[in-house]
């Protein structure tokens, strides 16, 4: 009943449309695949942490001339170690002067009791174990009350910070604690996620391709074992050991994505 009226134009149109439709579908899918691969690669590329030790600012509690500075920048100190000594001779002379008249003079007694509170402050000790950073005074210079004497890094409460992409963040979020590896010490340590902040632009020192205009997450980790933090130097770099790295990264679909990337995006 049907006429076998073969029209070349029809055949041509049909074939063209099939091919065209197929190509469009292929283009859309490969775009989608490329996005997925990039996101996956950003997840599997290494994430580096920067050691961020807690800053301690040491201020002078009294005024006076700096007598001795017992430490240098970068030196490790233990809690209670004497780091700076201020000249107390003027103070002591004043105290002994007041002591002589203290019995008869009420105002002298009052001043004396106030001064005695400062007696210990001429020797400045390290409040915690740590490393000296900047020294803001020099021997022989005069410091006022509350003037900054030096800053140091505490050995406790060491943090690790890193900037990651949202994809990487969701990967890291899934694991509870992570492993970080120190190249220098050739050792792995455990760390826990402590805080997250959304940053606008990350520091450009990471190892992955940065997507343009993306928001980054600033992650803050702490060592599971708090004492571990003492070993590290400020701004030292540690690498996140990604659990996914244990498996092989190059999946067959990665190779496929690379082919498409090359064909379509010219990379």
């Amino acid at each position: 009943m049907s006429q076998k009226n073969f029209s070349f134009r029809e055949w041509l149109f049909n074939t063209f449309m099939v091919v065209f439709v197929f190509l469009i579908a292929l283009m859309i899918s490969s775009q989608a695949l490329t996005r997925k691969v990039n996101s996956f690669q950003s997840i599997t590329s290494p994430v580096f942490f920067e050691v961020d030790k807690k800053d301690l600012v040491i201020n002078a509690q009294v005024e006076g001339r700096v007598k001795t500075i017992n430490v240098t920048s970068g030196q490790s100190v233990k809690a209670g170690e004497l780091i700076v000594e201020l000249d107390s001779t003027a103070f002591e002379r004043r105290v002994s002067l007041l002591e002589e008249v203290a019995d008869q003079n009420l105002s002298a007694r009052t001043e004396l009791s106030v001064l005695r509170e400062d007696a210990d402050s001429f020797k400045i000790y390290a409040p915690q174990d740590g490393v000296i950073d900047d020294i803001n005074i020099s021997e022989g210079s005069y410091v006022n009350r509350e003037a900054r004497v030096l800053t140091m890094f505490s050995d406790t409460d060491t943090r690790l910070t890193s900037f990651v992409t949202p994809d990487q963040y969701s990967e890291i979020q899934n694991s509870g604690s992570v492993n970080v590896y120190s190249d220098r010490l050739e050792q792995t340590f455990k760390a826990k996620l402590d805080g997250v902040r959304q940053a606008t632009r990350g520091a450009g020192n990471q190892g992955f391709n940065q997507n343009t205009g993306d928001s980054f997450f600033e992650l803050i980790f702490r060592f599971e074992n708090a004492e571990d933090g003492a070993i590290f130097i400020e701004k030292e770099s540690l690498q996140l050991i990604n659990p996914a790295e244990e498996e092989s990264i190059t999946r067959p679909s990665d190779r496929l994505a690379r082919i498409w990337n090359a064909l379509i995006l010219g990379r």
Partner: protein
Amino acid sequence: MKAGKIFAKKIPAVTFLFLAASPLVVIWYAAYIFNVNNADNLFLYSIQIIADSIAMMVLLGLWLTVLIDTLIERHHRTFERVNFSLLSDDNVPTVDVFITVYGEPLSVIEKTARAARDMRVLHNTYVLDDGNSFEVRYFCEQNGIKYIAREKNDHAKAGNVNNALSETDAEFFAIIDADHVPEPEFLEVLLPYMEDKNLAMVQSPQHYRNIENFIASGTAQAQEVFYRYVCPAKNISNSAFSVGTNVLFRRSAIDQIGGIALNNSEDIWTSFLLHKNGWRTIFVNQVLAIGVAPDTIISFFKQQRRWAKGGLDILINESPMRNEGLELDQRIQYFISSTFFLVGIPILVYIVMPIIYLLFDEKPLLITNGTVWLIHYLPYFFLYFAITFLLLRQKLRISTMATALANFYPYLLGLFSVIFDTEQEWVATTSKKNSVDPIMKWIWPHVFLLVLSILSLIVGWYNPTEFWASFFNSMWVGLNIFLLSTFLTRARYK
């Protein structure tokens, strides 16, 4: 002479189940999906909302219709008590039977014409040949059938009938498509209803015999719901509309509205105009002619696009809800019938959404806890599948699902042609007069979506972020692949 078999009316348990369950299921799902807190990607969410709203509205329309049909039995009985005075010998009115022809094969026309000529009750039989064929003319002359042709073919079938009306003057006339073979009792059954002087039209159902064909089988179940529930229910509100064939008209009524409506969907438009002018119409649920369903993709899609255009034309250009010429329930019925064709939008959305998720990881809803969504969605999903079972007591056929899915394209084409006001030619269902009409013009979206679905399954499982979301979306995509490929391989192209 029998009064005709009219389906007896009891409420089957499953119909009751459908009526009771539907609102609950829909509200249950709506409570979840209309809650903006559950939204993820806002753009996709709004599309999802639009699609679901349309789907729910269509379901609601069906529910209302079934409810009316179930509760109000009257309409099945009302028309039994007709007086057969019109058939008594002293009172026989003049009746013309028009067979509209445009390019159908002679073998088809012959069968219909002879059957029409041989129907009981005195009448004139005319073949209205828009194809102006010599063979047809010769056949008519040899078989005692009158023949009318015209010089120009403007306004397709509507113009054809109006032309015949200008050359005839019977009190009543029937329209029968060239491929619908009428039963001998056709006029015997329909004519008595015209006793009511306010009645302008009596419509009987379309029934197809070629159900082995994939497409025909696919539309059969939907047609059955339409003719078994929707049409009888419309009788209550005097909103039965013509489907273009197997119908009897009162001449004076048609004259009053200025002839058959000059429109590509002249059937629904003519009914609409009759209603606006206060005429009554009824649907008689008895098969009185047996026809041929469209059996090729192209003829089927053209028909569906024509129906969609007609229905949506009324919706968009006539705004049935605010039309003063109609009564409230008529307005509601026209609204329901025309909005049905918007269902192309949700179908397309449901096909595309899971693909978007698998490819681009974006979804309309926050499905962090898959079970919550599943609990809300599954009953709703199954309701759609259960409709054929609940209303027709038949298993939902694959051909039905596949055809319904594929229909999104002609429905969307209909929608666009109404919005952008384009004209199309009316082509008869079995006409072989297809000039160069490449199949890809009609199935490119299906091929495209099929290929894209398959590719999305591959890409989607590259490092999936959420396993269960990917799983469910893959199931969905898999179903669509199955239905699309079934349609494309089993339906005839030409």
